[in-house]
């Protein structure tokens, strides 16, 4: 791409600007609690969708600074409190980005636990070191003053927003959009006309990077793609 074209791409006004929002959430303590895998399975079936959201997606934000070994609360409990490493590995392999609805994510988690109990029936009633307490997430949207009218502005505003805003648009958005994508990629594809860059952003591994790393990676990809 020529220098002129690059400059044009950076400054060309998008038909619709990107408004950066953020969200803040509270943990609500739910009624479900599980002292063993049998109870865990029952609770997984009956808990509110907001609980599945909290323990798989929202928890990524709460532990966003960990690069190694944290995937979701269910896998963590299976490993540390149930000492069921095999189950923990299977639950940890869940990638929330592959799901466009909480119900499909719940179905997959239930399937994994059912299958594990079927193969390891003794694990069903074995007491965990401590119970799993189901919580749910209750969020409010926070509008911010950061608005991008062009790709150049988008990169600049991306440097200023909080990591919560990045989580809101890059991770939480998938369930809102009900697409295997995110707000950033959608805007870049539709408003800036960069479908390949959008796809590259969408492949960033949120499980091995901190949210701060994600921010840096987003900026790097956007810069290199237009260099």
């Amino acid at each position, binding site marked *: 791409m020529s220098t002129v074209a690059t400059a044009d791409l950076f400054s060309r006004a998008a038909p619709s600007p990107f408004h950066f929002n*953020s969200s*803040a*959430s*509270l*943990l*609500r*303590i739910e*009624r479900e*609690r599980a002292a063993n895998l049998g109870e865990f399975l029952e609770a997984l079936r009956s808990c509110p969708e907001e609980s599945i959201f909290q323990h798989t997606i929202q928890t990524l934000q*709460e*532990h*966003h*600074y*960990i690069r*190694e*070994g*944290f995937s979701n609360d269910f896998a*963590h409990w299976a490993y*540390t409190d149930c000492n069921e490493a095999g189950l923990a590995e299977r639950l940890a392999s869940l990638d929330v980005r592959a799901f466009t609805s909480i119900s499909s994510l719940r179905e997959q988690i239930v399937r994994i636990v059912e299958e594990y109990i079927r193969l390891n029936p003794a694990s069903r009633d074995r007491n965990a*070191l*401590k*119970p799993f*307490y189901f*919580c749910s997430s*209750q*969020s*409010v*949207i*926070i*509008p*911010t*003053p950061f608005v991008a009218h062009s790709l150049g502005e988008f990169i600049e505003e991306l440097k*200023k*927003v*909080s*990591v*919560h*805003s990045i989580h809101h648009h890059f991770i939480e958005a998938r369930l809102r959009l009900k697409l295997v994508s995110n707000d950033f990629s959608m805007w870049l594809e539709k408003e800036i006309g960069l479908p390949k860059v959008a796809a590259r952003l969408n492949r960033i591994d949120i499980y091995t990077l*901190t949210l701060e790393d994600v921010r840096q990676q987003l900026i790097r990809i956007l810069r290199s793609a237009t260099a």
Partner: protein
Amino acid sequence: MDETSKGIPAFAAETDSSGGNGNVRGAMSETEQLDTATLPLRERRKKPRISETPPLPPPPPKLEDYERIIGKPQLDELRYLAEALHGKTVKMVNSTAVGGGVAEMLNRLVPLMEELQINTHWDVITGGNDFFEITKGFHNALHGGSYDLSRQIQEVFLATNEQNRQRMKFEEDVVVIHDPQPAPLIASKKDHQAKWVWRCHIDLSNPHPDVWGFLRPMVDQYDAAIFSSPAFARQLSVPQYLFYPCIDPLSEKNKELEESYVQKVCDDFGIDRSRPIVTQISRFDRLKDPVGVVHAYKMARNYVDCQLVLAGGGASDDPEGAVVLKEVMEAAGDDPDIIILNLPPWSALEINALQRASTLVVQKSLKEGFGLTVTEALWKAKPTIAGAVGGIPTQVIHKLTGVLVHSVEGCAYQIRYLLTHPEFAKKLGENGREHVKENLLMTTNVRRWAVLFRILLGLS
């Protein structure tokens, strides 16, 4: 000077009753402190220089002071979050203006909410000795202790609250009642539009049935209840939220310190910074297992060189604390590398310095509330070894933000392991600090309150 001299304040007049090692931690006069400043480290351990008077409290920090801690984007976001609440009014009610964790927290929270233009008023209920004797009994009973809940007790409790209720006005948008003492103020809910929140700071997992049966009908009238851990909560008819306790990164206990001050404190206490330092900060209380820590240290010492610092208070105003201190000193025996410090309540800066000087921090509790000393250690990026009890596993994610242990042997092994694997220990410390920064700082709690108010007031 004899360390058992009557001139020593009660808090510091502990003696080495084992008669063995001489690792007694008594306070000295300033003249004596000057005299000992030139002593070799190990001699100084026998006469640590402990402050005899409380320092003046520093002014509370401003919101902008937190920018260098959490960063501008996060602080700005807190302001955006609160914009919807500008002009809204909140009343906080508890039972004491000074002393205790709740008052300490409100002292910081209320000015920060005011700065966010959420008009916040803090009220304190009053009562006679009989009332506070009853609430102390309730407190113990709600923790599982035995209690005889007579009709007279119920009447005094309700009558005192009724007097307070008549005195107070509840014209705010949200009323937050802290702990059981003022819970009956909910009787005013019917007269006003406010949303009422009950913030329970204590563990209700195993309450005395009569006392909880007496309080529960009041709690069920609130619009929401808040607990510090899901394990502390009860099944209630109202929504229950989880607010972790928090620390203030700008408090005396947690603020950044000059390296020269940290060195001075170590010098005063006879701690050798050229060798690894393993520290447990806690009251001399069996539930903190200080004797277990001594045994773990002794097992680890067969493999690695280190010193053990056990610092805390409570051995002077608590008869059991004095007994536990004696047991700890007996367990320590004549080991010159075990340094036991019975510190006065105003030792926040010294504790801060001890934590910062430590190579590892241990909190080998057998039972625990939330365990804010763990939070403090994590905030200082210290590799932390902690008992897997109470709220500790919320903070210490095993092998990610620290290590959890279940025995003296496990503790000894982790001391050995972390001292011989400093890169891994460093990573734990870094993750631990980030965990606190994201989830357990005062600013996170302000954020939680703002979210709750928005949800309750339909501003989400």
